[in-house]
């Protein structure tokens, strides 16, 4: 009887994945530390009012968004590489263990790492600017509403990048971004056209927006906050499920 999930094996797979990316992650962190210090030194001026959004919040969002999503999109490079593929595929690790290990690493664990690393970068950046220019901004607050929103957006977009990393053999980041943008544009367009077809009497030819109030049966459902949260979480989970099925289709014969 095959065991699709064994904790010791999963732990080993995760450990190996962490060790595999540790060096590039370390170099990336050092580069971002330099970027943080430089941007603080260039932007913080004595007597200036604190920016809104604060430099730290903006930088945190950029780091998590760009480097985090880029990192996610390269999480299956070894699977797609024609010569590294053998090593990846022949290791006695199950499909589920591999999937969970890489998802955790590029999703929640990366989020935690970037947040902790950025808090340190921000603190040291402030110390450096205080030392050189005698100016500093309020420290980065990882639990502020803005930070939590950034984290939520990352956790929502990361599965999309993760799916792209599995599906696209090369240029996963660009291809996934373009595909996602295409979906992002085409889905509302299809909904809009459908609305114009089904509620034709609520629209006029000369205007894009509805001239009458449209009230569909679905709208009241989304007035509740929990419903919106459920839809967003459900979307992320669905994307993860699709990613898992894609990985299985790549690796396992059904």
């Amino acid at each position, binding site marked *: 009887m*095959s065991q699709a999930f064994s904790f010791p094996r999963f732990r080993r797979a995760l450990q190996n994945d962490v060790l595999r990316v540790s060096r590039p992650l370390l170099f990336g962190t050092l580069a971002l530390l330099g970027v943080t210090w430089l941007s603080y030194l260039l932007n913080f001026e004595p007597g200036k009012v604190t920016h809104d959004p604060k430099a730290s919040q903006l930088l945190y969002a950029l780091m998590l968004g760009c480097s985090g999503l880029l990192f996610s999109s390269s999480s299956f490079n070894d699977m797609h*590489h024609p010569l590294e593929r053998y090593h990846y595929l*022949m*290791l006695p690790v199950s499909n589920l263990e591999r999937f969970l290990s890489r998802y955790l690493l590029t999703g929640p664990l990366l989020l935690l790492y970037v947040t902790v690393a950025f808090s340190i970068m921000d603190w040291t950046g402030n110390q450096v600017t205080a030392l050189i220019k005698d100016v500093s901004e309020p420290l980065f607050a990882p639990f502020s509403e803005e930070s939590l929103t950034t984290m939520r957006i990352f956790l929502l977009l990361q599965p999309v990048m993760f799916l792209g990393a599995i599906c696209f053999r090369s240029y996963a980041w660009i291809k996934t971004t373009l595909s996602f943008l295409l979906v992002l544009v085409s889905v509302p367009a299809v909904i809009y056209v459908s609305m114009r077809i089904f509620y034709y009497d609520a629209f006029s030819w000369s205007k894009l927006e509805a001239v009458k109030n449209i009230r569909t049966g679905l709208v009241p459902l989304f007035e509740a906050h929990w419903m919106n949260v459920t839809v967003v979480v459900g979307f992320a989970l669905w994307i993860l499920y699709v990613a898992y099925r894609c990985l299985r289709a790549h690796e396992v014969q059904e």
Partner: protein
Amino acid sequence: MIDIQNLGFRYSRKGDALFSNLNLALPAGTLCGLLGANGAGKSTLLKLMSGLSFPQRGRCTVLGHEPGQREPEFLADIFLLPEEFQLPALESAVFVERFGCLYPRFDEDRFTRLIVELQVPRQQKLNTLSQGQKKKFLLAFGLATQARLMILDEPTNGLDIPSKSQFRRLLIDQFQPERSFLISTHQVHDLQGLIDSVMVLAQVQILLHETVEALESRLQITVEQEAPADALYVEKSLEGFRVIRENDGGQESRLDLELMFGLVTTGPAKVRELFRPEARA
């Protein structure tokens, strides 16, 4: 150990079938050589056995598992040494520490002994080794996993002459009755005297699968000055003509794999006739 029935495989829907109705049974405790011309499908067959490609038709069972399911227990019991591969930028000890523990029967002492014997530099990063040294490293790792089935795809490509004889010695040393080796190559000389059975893959099927003993008892190989009319296969050489005849006298001669491969690929009907069960009886 390996049981393949009516296997069908093609790379693209419109392309020609690489295999159609391929049948094969390989028992445990064999050192089998898989021979075939370039493009005959040797590497593909090995991929199908390892679960790296999936058959479109038929059944493939390896060590009681369906390779396509890629179960971890199956992957721990099989080791594939590919023809071309890339290793991570790690030292051999680090590689073993990270990946050895995924194989339940991994024997670190044996690995150390083999690495020393094969003279693979231990301090050097694996990605900086030469292709031959990488192969020797992976061979040592594979043998240390104690996998029941070792699949070696062109293992001697990139090995120098001393390494080739080392490779042969090592395989013989590590051979155990519960373990099988399937070696695919087009360098037949490297398998001479090493294998105990031969498989020839050509024309989308296994044309011959016999033990070396059976081949030596059924075929007689001689060198003659004139090409005889009753020969099954003749090849011109510097000494004269190398000839394969049906062995009627019962005197065994040493098998020449290259000559035998020529016979099988040029006259498969003759070989089939010679090795059909009634003819043996």
